[in-house]
């Protein structure tokens, strides 16, 4: 099994806001990210696929094909867009880095699976060089639910 990763960069704006909370609670939990006028990032999207190299080409997948899929499925929807306002999946879901990683998986997985061969293995979304979220697919469940640091805010 070989893992192959391709990166792409997109620039987008967003804000964090839970409609069921008061403005005060939103500001308390999300801090500066709750600014309703939004703010932006240069995101880095990392897509990892897993498979065996083709015996003829030596490719796990064709990198140009993967680039095209990433541009068509993700960058066309997110690059130079406002995540909350332009991407339908974030109409009711807060576009945190975690949720962007999950949404990118949902956008990419059908096209990669349909092509046969390699499978989608991992999505990483870097919000800044020092902050990232990762999603490895719906098969991974939380086996120990941590509660100590949740729901207190």
């Amino acid at each position: 099994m070989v893992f192959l990763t391709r990166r792409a960069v997109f620039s987008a704006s967003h804000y964090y806001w839970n409609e069921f909370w008061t403005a005060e609670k939103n500001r308390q939990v999300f801090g500066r990210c709750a600014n309703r006028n939004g703010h932006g990032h240069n995101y880095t999207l990392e897509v990892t696929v897993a498979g065996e190299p083709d015996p003829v080409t030596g490719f796990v997948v064709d990198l140009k094909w993967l680039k095209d899929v990433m541009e068509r499925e993700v960058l066309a929807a997110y690059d130079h867009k406002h995540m909350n306002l332009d991407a339908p999946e974030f109409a009711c879901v807060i576009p945190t880095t975690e949720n962007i990683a999950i949404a990118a998986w949902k956008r990419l997985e059908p096209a990669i699976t349909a092509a046969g061969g390699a499978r989608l293995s991992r999505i990483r979304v870097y919000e800044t060089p020092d902050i990232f979220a990762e999603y490895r697919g719906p098969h991974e469940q939380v086996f120990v639910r941590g509660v100590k640091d949740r729901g207190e805010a």
Partner: protein
Amino acid sequence: MKAYFGRRYLLSASHRLHTAAFTAEQNRAAYGKCNNEHGHGHNYVVEVLVGGAVDAETGMVMDLVKLDETVRARVLDRFDHANLNLDPLFADRVPTTENFCKAIFALLRDALPLGELEHVRVEETENNYFECSLGG
């Protein structure tokens, strides 16, 4: 649904790779220039990856501010601008980056909710790094 959240931190520390179990010659042979008597230092990058359910209300795996506070209290305040050899954790262990990574993993695992710490990666330089994970 499980997702992961990662954060990178910087700390600067000195160390010397040397073990009392070896002769001076054996230490030089095993550790090379890292055995220099007066030590040397690195800008370490500590990457912390936590995994868990994405909270339905916040959209977050873990509050970044709380993670920062935990890493600061347990790791950065202790090791940043310190000599690793003088820390009690390394009284009987050589502060290789492997052992440093294991120590940081244990300190954070004990401070975070059960099962949330997925891995710790410590980059000693741009060209080498070490990882400890939950299963390891």
